[in-house]
């Protein structure tokens, strides 16, 4: 397993990716990237603490987001509140399955899966669970990619509230759950951003090292020879990109 940059005294910039020397002494805390002036760190500072704190806050907001009404429909028959789940059920019963499925996926499935994925990633980075790090990489990537799509319910309320101004017949006003749900989405996005996937690989390398020390008979053969210094990336040719613009 190749050595990480941090062990060799290099830090890569979070913003521009430039690799520069960062000594481990505390004075280096104020070091900045020579290219873009972003503060340099070997790992994101307080990554796990921040991720946990934001996750807890998101979990706390998720309760009112589901219990309180997300919008209030006032019509001739009187006022009617609908929560996220009751809205999904209504649309399912009315037969608008696409709407029900989209809202259910975006507002219930994605946020729950995202929180579960981040909890799993944090536990793995703290060494409480053991999972293949490549799989965790993929989990993190998908979590970051999908998170923003849960905002769709807030936008639906926004468009509906503006559209439905049918004189005095009917009004739709956003309920308190819309604000808390937007909060859940924003907090989980920040939480995913503050997580550092490199911690998972640090933990993985550590456990490989420990198992090797514990059982010297296994030797280097079981895990491959230790590679020191710089390795070269795999170069692949992608035929799709050969399609030139005219």
């Amino acid at each position, binding site marked *: 397993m*190749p050595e*990480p*940059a*941090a062990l*060799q*005294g*290099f830090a*890569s910039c979070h913003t*521009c*990716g430039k*690799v520069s020397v960062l*000594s481990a002494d505390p004075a280096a805390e104020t070091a900045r990237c020579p*290219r*873009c002036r*972003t503060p340099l760190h070997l790992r994101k500072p307080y990554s796990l603490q921040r991720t946990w704190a934001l996750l807890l806050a998101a979990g706390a907001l998720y309760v009112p987001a589901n219990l309180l009404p997300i919008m209030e429909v006032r019509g001739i028959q009187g006022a009617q509140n609908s929560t996220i789940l009751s809205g999904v059920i209504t649309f399912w019963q009315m037969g*608008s399955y*696409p709407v029900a499925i989209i*809202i259910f996926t975006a507002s219930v499935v994605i946020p729950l899966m995202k929180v579960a994925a981040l909890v799993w990633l944090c536990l793995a980075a703290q060494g409480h669970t053991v999972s293949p*790090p*490549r799989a965790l*990489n993929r989990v993190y990537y998908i979590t*970051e990619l999908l998170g*923003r799509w849960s905002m*769709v*319910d*807030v*936008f*639906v309320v*926004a*468009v*509906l*509230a*503006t*559209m439905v101004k*049918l*004189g005095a*017949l009917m009004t739709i*006003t*956003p309920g308190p759950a*819309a604000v808390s749900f*937007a909060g859940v989405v*924003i907090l989980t996005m920040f939480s995913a*951003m503050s997580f550092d996937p*490199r911690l998972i*690989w640090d933990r993985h390398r550590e456990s490989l090292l420990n198992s090797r020390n514990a059982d010297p008979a296994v030797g280097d053969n079981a895990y491959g020879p230790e590679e020191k210094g*710089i*390795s*070269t*990336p*795999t*170069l*692949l*040719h*992608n*035929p*799709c*990109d*050969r399609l*030139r*613009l005219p």
Partner: protein
Amino acid sequence: MPVRYHHPAAAAATTTTVAALMKRHHPGLSWPQIQDGPMRVACHFCDTLQESPRLREGDAAYCCCCGRQLYRNRAHSLARAVSFSSAGLILMVIAHSFPFLSMKSGGLSTRLTLVETVFTFWGEGSPLLAVAVTFFTIFAPLVLLGGLLYISVPLRYGAAFPGSLTVACWFQRFEPWSMLEVFLLGILVSLLKLGHLAHVTYDTGLWALAGVVVCTSAAMAGIDRMELWDRLEIAQQPVTERAA
């Protein structure tokens, strides 16, 4: 073992002329870099330190440890960035000046623009939501496209406007918060919801909005971060140092 990395060519690079700097750009083979020697890159996922060799157009480098893509040399990336971000900005003006939905129910008709949505929200006592919707659907996409255009237009000629570094940092930070495509899905869902209540028709604004989404993703997919920053770094060098 922390070693300061110095390739002999790096020292020589400071004494070359602008003409020599330009020569570093070999057509079809990678983009110009600040030094001629090999550079290094660390994987963002597993932090493995690796050489970063120059790539031919269309090739990509993948991490030798975790298999994630490190960087890729995309053909005509700056030209793509300029054209798609300028087209996106023009479409954005259209999207804001025309309504995206109009609805007829009884004798009443409503026409809806993006800015109106925000104002309605503000007026109906949810200023927090109004601010969030403004930020995600108006401000962040504008920063994304405007920032990309501001950086990439002068970069095509090897120059950089003042403050390009700050703009580049901010435009990268705003990327996850630009949610126009999610908003577009939201419009479609509310169309499905309202379909049985009233007669809803799409307007120019909706097509323009869809165009903005396409242009934004095309512009962002076309550019490689590493190339953008390498080019910016060269353009940011003071001319005196370049010509010294």
